Every structure is written in C-alpha cells, then in structure tokens.
C-alpha cells in the first residue's frame, strides 16, 4: 500500500476507518469482480440459491449432494460479485472558503477535501473505483473513476490545488456529472448546499431514479450555525455581490439561528424524501471520527 504525504490525507488517522467499508445500498454495477453485490447472477464464487433442473441447463451446476438427499435434480446458483463505483463531487465555490470570523478553523473546502481524500482512499483500498468532480458555477474538473493508487495520488494532488472561488451552481454541475457517468454507483456530494436552485434536487432525482446510492455531506462552519461573536459586523456575500448588512450579531442571532436550522431541516427533508443519506459535517470536528460515525450510522440503517 503506498503512502501519501499530504495534509489532506492522514494515513495514521485513517486507521480508525480500517474496519469501515463503503457499502452501497442496493447493488453495484462495477466492471470487475469486486466484493459488492451485483444484481446480475451467474458464475460467481458465492452461492446464492437453488433452482430445479430443467432440460437444457448446465449439468455441471447440479448439486449432487442435494440429489442424494432428495432424489431430485437442483442447480446451484451463485451471485456475481462486482466492484463499487464511487463518484465524488466536491463544491469548490467561494462560500466553501469560509474559515470563520471570530472562531477560526480550517476552511470548509479544506475540511471537505480531507473528507474527499479519506473517502477516495477507502474506495481505492477496497479495490473499487472512484472518480472526482470539482464544481463551482461549472464543472471545472472531472476525473473518471479508476481504482489504482496513482489515480488516488492524482486526485489528492488535484485537491491540493483547489481554490474556493466563484459562484455556486451545484444543480447544473451535478447534471453534467450525470451525463458523464456511464455506470451507476455511489454519488457522494460534499458541499455546503447554499445553492438555492431547485436544480440541485432535480439532479438528485435523476441520480436516484438511476438507482445511484446518494450520500450528501453538508459542510458547515460553527459560525454558520451561530453568528460570529463580534460586537458589530458588516456582512458581505462570499460569492460576489455588492450588498452588505451592518448589524450587531447579538441582535439577530436568535432569528438567524432559527432560520439556519430551518435551512438545514429543508436539506435534510429533501434528502430523506429522495432516499439520500444526509450528513452534517462541522469543520470543528475530526473528519475521520466523523466519517466513522457516518458509516456506522449508515450500516445500522441497512
């Protein structure tokens, strides 16, 4: 197993995820024989079921032990095991560059990159394929799914060069991703989901109708949950715009908190309605621990 010396991937911390496997809900449609279930049944190493022999079946699949017991002819059926396809879509718009005002943490983008790297590592280490798409107002980077370590290294390097800039048009970018992918798999979106466009949900619906397993990681900074603790602030948009809003955060804190909570509820509700998994990631938490909790929770829901 190669080593990666990059801030976005701490292999030591990845140890806590060694027992974690990204298992898709439903079945995989990979190219190679992998550990994930495939909806296709055929020559495979794992017994699936019995079927009564009919004229024309391959006699080599007859289970003679069963014949000896029952005096009837049955075929053994096996499940074809195929590998996972994971598509990582990372939002690199300007809003992801927020690192806090009074309480400084790493940028949301950095945090998301670490999650992305960890997820990619998990997939590749299972022998599965992982692809990466970087989005802001357009899809400005798309790496097709591969399963080798050099591909992972390239991905991590690409992540390292990423800058948070531009506006958000996540819906349009996801549509673009959908057009580019050829096989179904697991779609993992890492974003702050501040794009108010309904296209985001339309694209989710597309993926879900195509039987993709969708995982949404919403990245938030603690100061997005609660307003920065400063006496007086002039708030400006992060993605352009000339407007500003002068206020004492204390005055509007409660109202904002409720509004943001409502916003999160909308995202969560939209996700649940579409059968997507939604996870709220705070930048002040350990990403590896976070992922561990996410997968455990996902496993408990299977």
């Amino acid at each position, binding site marked *: 197993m190669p080593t990666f010396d990059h801030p976005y991937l701490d292999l030591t911390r990845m140890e806590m995820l060694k027992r974690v496997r990204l298992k898709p809900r439903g079945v995989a449609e990979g190219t190679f024989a992998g550990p994930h279930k495939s909806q296709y049944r055929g020559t495979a190493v794992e017994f699936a079921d019995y079927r009564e022999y009919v004229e024309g079946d391959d006699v080599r699949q007859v289970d003679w032990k069963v014949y000896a017991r029952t005096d009837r002819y049955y075929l053994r059926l096996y499940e074809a095991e195929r590998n996972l396809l994971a598509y990582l879509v990372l939002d690199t718009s300007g*809003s*992801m560059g*927020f690192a806090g*005002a009074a309480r400084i943490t790493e940028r*949301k983008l950095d945090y998301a990159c670490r999650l992305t790297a960890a997820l990619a590592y998990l997939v590749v280490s299972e022998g599965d394929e992982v692809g990466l798409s970087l989005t802001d107002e357009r899809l400005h980077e798309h790496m097709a799914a591969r399963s080798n370590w050099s591909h992972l290294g390239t991905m991590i390097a690409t992540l390292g060069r990423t800058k948070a800039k531009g506006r958000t048009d996540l819906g349009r970018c996801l549509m673009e991703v959908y057009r580019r992918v050829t096989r179904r798999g697991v779609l993992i979106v890492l974003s*702050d989901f*501040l794009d*108010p466009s309904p296209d985001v949900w339309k694209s989710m619906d597309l993926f879900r109708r195509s039987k993709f397993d969708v995982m949404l990681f919403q990245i938030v*900074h603690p100061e*997005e949950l*609660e*307003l*920065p603790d*400063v*006496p*007086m*602030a*002039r*708030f*400006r*948009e*992060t993605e352009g*715009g000339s*407007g500003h*809003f*002068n*206020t*004492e955060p*204390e*005055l*509007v*804190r*409660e*109202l*904002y908190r*409720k*509004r*943001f909570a409502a*916003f999160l509820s909308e995202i969560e509700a939209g996700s649940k309605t579409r059968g997507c998994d939604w996870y709220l990631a705070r930048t002040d938490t350990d990403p590896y621990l976070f992922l561990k909790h996410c997968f455990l929770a996902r496993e408990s829901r299977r």
Partner: protein
Amino acid sequence: MFGVTNSWILVGLAAVGLPVLIHFLTRARPRVIRYPTYHLLIEAGRGRQAVHRLRTWVILALRTLAVMALVLAFSRPFLKTPGADIEPGQARRVVLVVDASMSMRAVAGGISLFAKARAQAADLLRSLEEGSSAGVVFMGATPRAALPALSRNLAVLHEELASAEATLEKGDPMAALALAQTMLDGQGAVYVFSDFQRTNWGSVAFDSFAGMTFFLRPVTPVGIGNVGIVAIEKSPGEPIEGETIDVACTVFNATADKRLETVHLDLEGVTQNADIELQPYSSGTATFTFSLPTAGCFPGRLSLAPDDLNDDNTRYFKVPVRRALETLLVSDADRDDPASAAFFVETALCPSEYADTGITVTRRHSQEVDRASLERADAFFIVAPARLRGDTLETISRRVLDGAYLVCFLDGPTAPAVVGGLRGASSGMISPPFQLERAVAAERAGGEFFSGVRTAGGPLKVFDAPDQGDLMGLSFRRHYLTDVVPTRKEEVLARFPDGSAALSLSPAGRGAAIFVNFPVAPDGSDLVGNPLFPSLLHELMRALRTSGAGDADTPGTRWHIDVAAGQSPEGDEDACNVVGPDGQEIEAVVVARGRTVRLALPPASVPGHYRVSRGGAQVNVGIINVDAKETDTRQLNITGLLDAANVPRAGMVSVLDTEGQLISAGRPTRLWPHLAALAALCLGAEMLLLAVWRRRRGLVLGARLEGRAQ
C-alpha cells in the same frame, strides 16, 4: 411671553450635540465578514435591524432632549401671563381684598369663612417676593384699608389680618375694589377672598377697573346653606292703643332643602310662636297678631333657631303705639250740614266723644286753619269743598313729607285746585297717580259702579275678600275722569268701569296720601249709608300707617333717629342719650330741629335696639338690623363674572380654585421645575429602555453560553 433669567447659560445648548457626537464616536466599528449564509442572514435580520435602528434613535433622542431640558432649566425660563408681566423674584404691588361682610361669619367645618379667608390672605402675604408692597382692604358697607397706602411692612399687615373680624355689615364689592384701585394707582393685581355671594357680587362690573388684574379666591366651593329673617312689616306701622297689630315676618330659605322653621316673637310681654314651611331657595311669611293696650314705643324681636349663620336669625323692630291719632279735617262745608261729606267723614272717624276709636278729629274751615292744628295733626283730611290757602297747603305738604298722612276727597269743583296746590307746594312729591280731566255725572237710573276691586296684595283689609269689601254694589253718581300715569298705576287701588281711578294710595316723602275720586255725600252716592263706609275709612287710615320703614338701617352705615321735640327737666330740649344693645352709650349729634329732632349717629356695629332717652324717660327706639341681602348666601356663578361682556380684557379676571393656584397666580410661571422633571424623565426612560433591551440580550447570550457548555 417667554423669558429667561440666566440667558448666558443658553450657550450650553451647544451641548445638545454631545449625545449625538458621543453616539457616533463610541459606536463600534463594524468588522467586515464575508459570510456564506448572507442571504439567510438578510432574511432573518432585516426587520430586527429596523427595530434596532429605531431603538437607537429613540435613545439618542431621549439623551438629546435630556441635555436640552437641563440646559434650559439652568437658564431658569419663565412664562409671563396676563397679570404677571414681571420676572420671577421681582417685587410686586398687590392689594388683598378680604370680604368682611356678615355672610363671612358663616361657619363651615368648625371655622368661619372669614377665618379661612384671613388665613389664605396671610399665606399669600408670606409668599410675596422680597421688596413687594401690599395692602389689605376689608370689604364691608364701607371698605376699610388696614393701612392707607401700600406698604412693604408686611408684618403690620399680618397683624391687621390677625386681629380683624368679620363685621355684621353688608358687603359693597365695588367700593372695595375701587379703594384697591386707588391704592394701586390704577395698575396692579388684586386678590379677592370672599364667598362671592350673588346678592353682592352679581352687579360687579370689571370694566370700571381697566388697568387692574383680579384673582378671585372663593373661600367655599359652594354657598353655605342658611335660613334667616329678611323683613318685618307691621300693620299699622303706628298703631293706636288697643288697635290690632299684624306683624308679618318674611323668612328666606337659602338652602336646597325644604325647611320647617319656628319663628318666635318677643315683644313687651307678648310671646308667640309660628311655624312656617319653606321651600328651597324661597321665602315664606309668618304673621303674628296682637294688640298693645298702652301708648309707648315697644321694642320687639323675631327670632329663629340657630344655624351656621346666626346673625340673621334675629330681627329687631319696634311698635310705636299712640294714645290717639290726631286728625285735622279741612272743609268749607257748613259744619252743621248733615248732608255734607265732611259731616259724614267726621262722624265715621269719631262717631262720638264716647267712642274710643283712638282718633281725635279737629275740624277747620280752609280759611281758618291755625298753625297749632296743622302742627299737631298726625293726619289731614281735605274734604271738598275746600279752598286752601297757600301757607296751609305748604304746611300740610311739609307735614306729610315729614311723615303725616293725607286723605283727600276729590269731589266738587275745588278738587283740581287742591290737587294742584298740593303738587306745587310739595314740588310734585304729593300728587295722585293720575291727572284729573273733567267731572262726569251718571244717569240716576244706570249709576256708576266700581268696575272691580283690585287690591294688588295691598294693605286694605276691606278689599281682601270680595264678600266683605265688595264695593260693586255701590253706586256713585259723579266722579272725575282721570288719566292714570302709566308708571304709577300700581298706586291705584280701585277703578271705575270707564278706567278712571276711584281710589289711590301713594307714598309722599315719609308719609302717604290717599286720593278719593268718588263722592261720599248722600247726593253723590249711597256709600255713607252703607256700614262699609266707616270701616273703609278706618282701613284707609290703617293702610296709611302700615309700614316696614324705620327698620332699614344696617350696621356700618351712618344713620339717625328722630325724636319728638320736647323740653328736658333741665331746660335743654335736645339732651338725649342713646344706649346701644350692649349697654354702651353712643354719641349722637343733633342735625335738625323742628317738631322732631334728628339725631345723627355713627355707624352701628351690632344690630339691636338703640334706646333714646331724655331725662331718664325713653322717647324712642332706633333699630339696626343686618342687611337682608346677606341672608341669601347662595354663591354667584363665578364663571359668569368672567363673561366677556363684563370683563374688557382677556386674562383680567381669574378664578383660583386651589391653594397652589393662589400662590402661583400673578407670578410668571417658572418653567425650570418642569424642564428638570423632563430631563429626569428622559434619562429615566433611557435607562429603563436600555435595561430592558440589554436584559433580553443577556438572556439570549446566557442561553448561548449554556448551549456551548453542553
């Protein structure tokens, strides 16, 4: 008009900008934050921001207002008002008019109204600015100033106030205000402390006091309820020994309740009681009937039960009883003619020397009237025909004007001359209320009748009930057509069907005159054969002597007593002693001599009987009673005094309902306490609002901290 005492402090108004400056200097600099959820913040915070901005402006406004109010307060502003055209602390010139009339002796809540007025006046004196000069005028029948002019020696005025008492006099507000005006040289403020009785104040006109300002302080919010005796009428006013006397007592109820009062008569052994029911704010009459067997002057009094104002519950009177009424009958008819009118009149007055009618009759021919008879007579009868001499007419006129009585029969051709002569001799004061036009005679068959008896509530008893004194059945064959003087038609007691006056009763100086315009001779009427005739004559005599006069003198005014001229044992005919009700001898000055001697007396201070004696014998009694107007204690509607028609200048007259208003009236209104209060209010409001708003923030902050800890 607005003014300030310390105008230099107004420079401090520049400090009004301080709160604004501090606000902007201490405002926290905003930290620029590029915020991902900007649009969510906008949605949540816009409305709140507007509220916050409003709160900020409110706080700023309160602070600015507080600074402005403080600065202005230190400049000690004031408002000049009409009657207060001076600066605060400036010396003033004021006169205090304190009502000292009888009604102010009424007691309310254990203290007299005058005591209240006195106390309030003293409070006002104490509150005057240093250097102020003041005067005090006590209002009575004649105003009395404590000091002749304004004085800065307020201690003396205090002493005068403290020692003053309400009088038993009536009040004369116009005189008191005029005195105040004189003391102030026509410019200044007058404070009036009174009960503002409507009977005294109803006629006050402030347009006579153009340059003055008046502050009226009622010492009682409403008039004190009172019942008192307001009038006495005797009939006859000068009775004869044994003659029936009626004393009618009028009582006034100045309360809002029905009252049942008992009037008590006390007169030389005669005591009677009479109950009288009185409606609210109305008067009623109680009548006492008695006779006095002997001649003399008998003092008497009528009284009620005590109430809050006792001084009008007793009223004094006298009954001068004559031994006999001396009458002089002047007629040119033959003394022995039994068909003459004079004969019948003389016979009716004094039927015989044995009949004790109390009337003595002296008869004279008009050309033979002697001076002694003229001077001795109490009553004169002129019965036509009579051609009186000029000196006789003059003497009769003088005597009647001096109090004697006249009955003049206008039958025959001499009547016009008699009427004209009397009118001329008395300068028109003795004349009938009609003009004689011409004599008319009736047909024997038809006759002339009295068209209807009209008494007008008058004194002729015979006319009280038609069945007793009905003269309609009598016939008169001649009379004079008369033209009644419209303004004197009330003096006509009876008329003929053609409207001519048949009988009249007119006042004539201190006496009275009756003019009879119908014949009493048998050839002219059937009156003399009627038993009505004597009673008619006697009732006429009684009517002439009915009077309430002589009891009209009141405390506080100069008055006189007339006594019959006589000789004292020492030979000094004018040596009379006058003793008041309290036993004090009163100095009397002779101001006129004649058949009567007139004694001038100083103003009386107490009501009652003032006995005049000469040589140890009582010769007359003077009567002083409180003025009946003081009994009606109802308060004037003071706002009516502020009527524009009565007050020529706006703000000239103010009514002060409270003690506070009394002290502040006439002074410029000091604004600094109000401004200081405003500043305190603004600062208090600012602190309260900040505390409330910050508390809310603290709750939210505390909740956040708790959330983080968890």
